[in-house]
Each structure stands twice: as C-alpha cells, then as structure tokens.
C-alpha cells in the first residue's frame, strides 16, 4: 500500500497527452485519435446529460423533501409525502442476501470448472452456466413466482420460522414473496456472471504456480487455496463487484417476487421493495410533478449508490492487487 508511486504515474495525464497528441504523427493517426477521443468524450457527455436530466426532473422532490427523502419511510401518493428509505433498504438487503449466497456458490463452481472438472465436462458445464446469464429476467421472474416462491413458503420459510423463529430475521407469517425471495432470485442472476469471470481469472493463473505448490508436496486443496486463489484474488473481487452491480440494478425478476410492500424491517419473510422495482411499477401511472419527481429522485439515489459501489469495488481491486504485490515482494 505504501508503495512509492512511479514518477511517470504522477504526471500520467500530461505524459499521456504529450505522447499521443503533441508529437506530430501521420494524418491517419491524428484522425483516428480524434475519433476515438470524441467517442470517449461522448460517453462522458452522456453521463453528464443523464445526471442533469434526472436532477431536473427530480428537482420538485429534492427541494420539497431535502435530505429527509432518504430517511423517511412514508410513500403516500395521496398526501404527496415521499420517502426513499424502505426502497434503499430493500435494494441493499436483497443485494446483500444475493452476494451472501452467490459468491460462495459461484466460487465453488468456478474452482470446479477451472481446476477440478475433467476436460470433457468443462466446456458443456461452462456453457450451461453462461446460458443461465442469457435467460431474460422476466422469464426468471415468472419461474421465481411459480416455482421458487411456493418452495420458499413451504418448506423453507415454515422450517426457518419454526426452528429459528427466535431470531427477528425469521419471524412473521411466511408469504413466500418477500426480501428472501428477492435476494435469492438475485443470487441466481448474479451467479453466472460471478462464475464466468472468476473461472476466467482462475484459468489465467500460470500453471507454474500450481506445479510449484504440488512439487513441494502440497495437496490439491492446498495448491488451490494457497497458490491459485491468492493469485486470482483481484479478479475474484472484480467478479463479485460485477455481480453486485447486476443485483443492484435488476428490476423485473425482483419486482415479481419481492412482494411490493414498503417497509424497513429485519424480517426476511416480509414483502419489501427495491428502488428499481418501485420505479418500474409506479412510473407509468404516476401523476403530478412531486410524485414523478420522487420516483426520479429514487433513480438518482440508485445511480449514486451504483456509482459508489463501483468506486469502492475499484478501490478494493486496486487494494488487493497492491497487497498481493507487497506480499509477493
């Protein structure tokens, strides 16, 4: 972490600019660079334009509710009082459940595919996992509603309620639809992404790492856990971040199984809502600047949270890389 930065990195932008643009190059190079630069700038421009548009549409709600928008739990279209807390809570809670379930499972699948599976099984199994990512979310949502939710209601929730019911997490009537169902469907959706990326990073670990470990007399498990996984750590973290990104923004499937309540509660069986599903279900019929503004502000909050997760994710990846480098030296 405390690595002294290379001088070139400090002046990176200046150096980069000079190398690419100040040095007279052939006209073809110049044209290509300009086009590429414009493409890059248009992306930034789009982001800025979107933010400005959202801010503008959300302005009535921003000025009316201020920061209270984030701490209030009321969503009352009749009185025109809107608060985002239950939706923010629902998004974070379901994403947390999803990560808790998806990361261990997909890591296991990735290790199996990259390290343990016999070669003839590798390709078809990887293909199947990737197929899972190709299922449209509305189809997954339907499956969730008609197949997964009844199973969650009985036996999962009934059993959790009767055996672990002393925990506030597992209290209340088992509806089937709710935070738990929302989190699990998100886990299924995040799983293929995390698996695919993690498997690729594991496959990219040089064989010399494994061979060295095995040559020292390590078992298969030791080789994987001490040599392969640490080497691929940053890639695995990045895989998790990608999965989390998907979980945070996913709308359709969650809407169908989360129950569309609006509350902040520790009870996982309770119907809840996420920001994305709140926007999706209510935007069509919303009337009045304040109502629409509140939904748009919800989008803005979701935008900010996704951005924050990405920034934190980047930092995490950089930090694990730095740590690995320090460890390596």
């Amino acid at each position: 972490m405390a690595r002294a930065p290379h001088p070139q990195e400090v002046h990176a932008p200046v150096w980069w600019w000079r190398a690419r643009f100040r040095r007279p190059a052939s006209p073809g190079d110049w044209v290509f660079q300009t086009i590429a630069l414009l493409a890059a700038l248009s992306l930034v421009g789009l982001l800025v334009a979107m933010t400005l548009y959202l801010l503008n549409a959300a302005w009535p709600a921003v000025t009316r509710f201020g920061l209270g928008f984030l701490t209030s739990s009321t969503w009352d279209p009749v009185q025109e009082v809107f608060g985002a807390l239950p939706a923010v809570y629902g998004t974070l809670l379901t994403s947390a459940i999803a990560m808790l379930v998806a990361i261990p499972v997909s890591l296991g699948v990735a290790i199996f595919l990259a390290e343990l599976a016999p070669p003839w099984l590798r390709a078809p199994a990887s293909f199947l996992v990737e197929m899972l990512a190709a299922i449209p979310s509305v189809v997954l949502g339907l499956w969730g509603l008609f197949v997964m939710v009844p199973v969650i209601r009985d036996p999962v929730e009934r059993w959790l309620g009767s055996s672990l019911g002393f925990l506030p997490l597992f209290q209340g009537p088992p509806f089937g639809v709710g935070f738990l169902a929302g989190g699990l469907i998100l886990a299924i959706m995040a799983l293929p992404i995390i698996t695919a990326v993690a498997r690729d990073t594991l496959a990219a670990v040089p064989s010399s790492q494994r061979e060295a470990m095995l040559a020292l007399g390590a078992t298969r498990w030791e080789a994987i856990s001490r040599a392969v996984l640490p080497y691929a750590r940053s890639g695995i973290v990045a895989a998790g971040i990608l999965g989390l990104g998907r979980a945070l923004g996913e709308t359709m499937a969650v809407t169908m199984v989360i129950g569309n309540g609006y509350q902040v509660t520790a009870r996982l069986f309770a119907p809840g809502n996420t920001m994305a599903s709140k926007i999706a279900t209510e935007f069509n019929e919303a009337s009045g600047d304040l109502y629409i503004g509140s939904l748009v502000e919800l989008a803005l909050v979701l935008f900010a949270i996704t951005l924050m997760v990405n920034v934190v994710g980047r930092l995490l990846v950089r930090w694990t890389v730095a740590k690995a480098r320090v460890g390596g030296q």
Partner: protein
Amino acid sequence: MQETRKTTKLPSNMALVAAGLAAIVLALVAACGGAGPTPTGTQVGQQPTPTTTPSGSQSTIRLNGAGATFPFPLYSRWFDEYARVAKTQVNYQSIGSGGGIRQVTEGTVDFGASDGIMTNDQQAKAEQAHGPILHIPMTMGAVAVVYNLQGIGAGQVKLTPDVLADIYLKKITRWSDSRIAQLNPGLNLSNQDIAVVHRSDGSGTTFIFTNYLSKVSQEWKEKVGNATAVNWPGDIGGQGNEGVAGQVRQIPGTIGYVELAYATQNNMAWAALQNASSKFVEPSLQATSKAALGVPLPDDMKVMITNSTNPEAYSIAGFTWLLVYRNQTDCTKGKALVDVLWWAIHDGQQYAPSLQYAPLPDDAVRKAEAQIRSVTCNGQPLLGR
C-alpha cells in the same frame, strides 16, 4: 514490463486501425455498388399506389388515443369493428389511466382514457392548454374482492363494508376473527393469517376500490384516502390484475381485489359484499349496471357510483371514461372522433357483455349524447344530428 508491452501493443494498434479502415472502405463500396439500383426499382414499382390513395374524403382518418388498461379489450374490439363500418382507424395504447391523463394534458393524443376522474389540479392544468376536457362514459366495470380459502368457493364468504375496510387497514388480521365469523356462521374459517394483496402499480381499479373504502370507512378516508396509488397499510403488492390474481391464487389465506372480468375469466372465488341497502350482493354485470340506477348522474358525468343505494347494486362499480377535448382543432379528425364516440355509446354497447363489461344504462347514454353534441371545431358543433 511496460516497455515490452508498448512495443507489442504498437502493431496491434495499427492492425486495428487498418481493420477499421478496411471495414469502412468495404461498407462504402457495398453502399455505392449494392444499394444503387434497388431503390429506383422499388420507386418505379410503387408509383401507382400513392396516386390512388389521396382521393378526397375517402382517405382513412387515423385517431390516436391512450390510457386505461381496464377497458382495453372492449376498446380494441370496438375500434376493430368500427374500422369496418367507417374509414376511421383508431390506434389505442393501453398505457394506464395516469398515462392517459398525462398524454391528454400534453396534447400528444386525440383522446385519452381513464378509470378515474381527473383531479381538479389535473383538469385545470390540461384545460389551461387545451380548453375544456369532457369525461364521456363508455362502459362500466366492477371490482371483485377475491380470496383464497381452502374449500370455500365464490360468493360463500360474506363481508360488510366496515369488515372489508378493517381487513385492508390491517385491524382484522385473522380469518377466524369474530367479526368475520359472525357474518359467516356456516363457514369453517381457520385461524389463518389474512394476507392482504393490493395493486403495486397505479391503477384505475385501485381508484375505484379506494373510492369505495373511503366512502364506507372514515378511518380509511383519513389514513389512506382515494387515488390510483395509495400508502397501503399492508402486505403484498402485485402488478396488474394478473399480478394480484397470481398472488391470491398462490398464497393461502389471501384476500385481494381484481376487475370482475378478470375474476370471471379465471374462476376466482369472490366475496358477496353488503351494499348500502344492507343486502349481500355478488359481483355481476347486472349488479354493476344497477349501480348507476337510482343515483343522480350529473351532466358532466364526473361521478363515482361506488356504494350505490340501489338495493340490487354491487357496491364497487364504476364508469370508465374517454377524455375528449371539447374544442377540437382539426375539424376532420374531430368529426371522425365524435362519430366514433356516438357509435361506441350506441352500437358499440352490444359488444360489452360478452367481454364482461356492463353496458351503459339509458340515463348515462343520454348524458353522454349531450356531451358528444357539445364538441365543437371553430365554434361549430361537429356532430350532424
């Protein structure tokens, strides 16, 4: 490391540029060579067609409307049938009542549609830009209260308005509650939790339902109120009628509300509701039409007929309206529109019952006729009768 990377990158960069340039050149060649002769060919072939179509008044007039999803099956049937008898093609988008009101306010459609009455604010905003907006009734619908109780069928559970309101207020939370048991002495109701299901999207169905609850329960009126979307005291939301129906069918002990047409088509068990004359009535088309009888209908037809005093009426019923600009700006389109409206409230009504909508009662038809007659273009009434 970095040095070697630089040197290896350079060729690949150049290769990319080369590939890109090659692609552009190829595309240009293809565009010039391949696409050249074809358009002239089609132009020649298509020339006869445009010369025949714009021949005076015979051309097809296109009207665009958008709004309520509830009457969509009926409207699409109507506009389909109407296109056969007149040269008017109506394109109706079922984007929801709220969307319909918004589109009318923005002036992006020729007419809107809604299951709810526009609020004073909404109406003022729209009228500022486009002049008076009429609510012309088209048909009637009812909202059925449906439940999922093992072994208990349609019409077997009897509910009073205050019990229904208290269930939705989450004050009655079990089916074995003494107030429900009192109404249903013959039924074996278990100690099950009542899971209350509501619409999660804004909806005209919710508007009618909450309008009814606001009329029969003071507490509901104060705490929750009447709108297309409200702050629900409880439980589960489902998107659309199918979402609510799906939840009710799946989860034991649920109660929900869906359009009568939807409940009928899906054989759902519905409650018999005590009406304002203290009679228990099951939802049906006749009971829906009855709701508009014996209630004074105002000339502007902006009336909610929930909790009707007619002894045979089902309590949760309502009109659905088309929202029409009284001052039309395009006289050709305006004339076509009033003709469609006139046809819909007369000839069109015969299609309603088979699609589970209740035909307008005579009184409502008279009021609608008067409204259609009041539509003008440049100050001249458009309807020639």
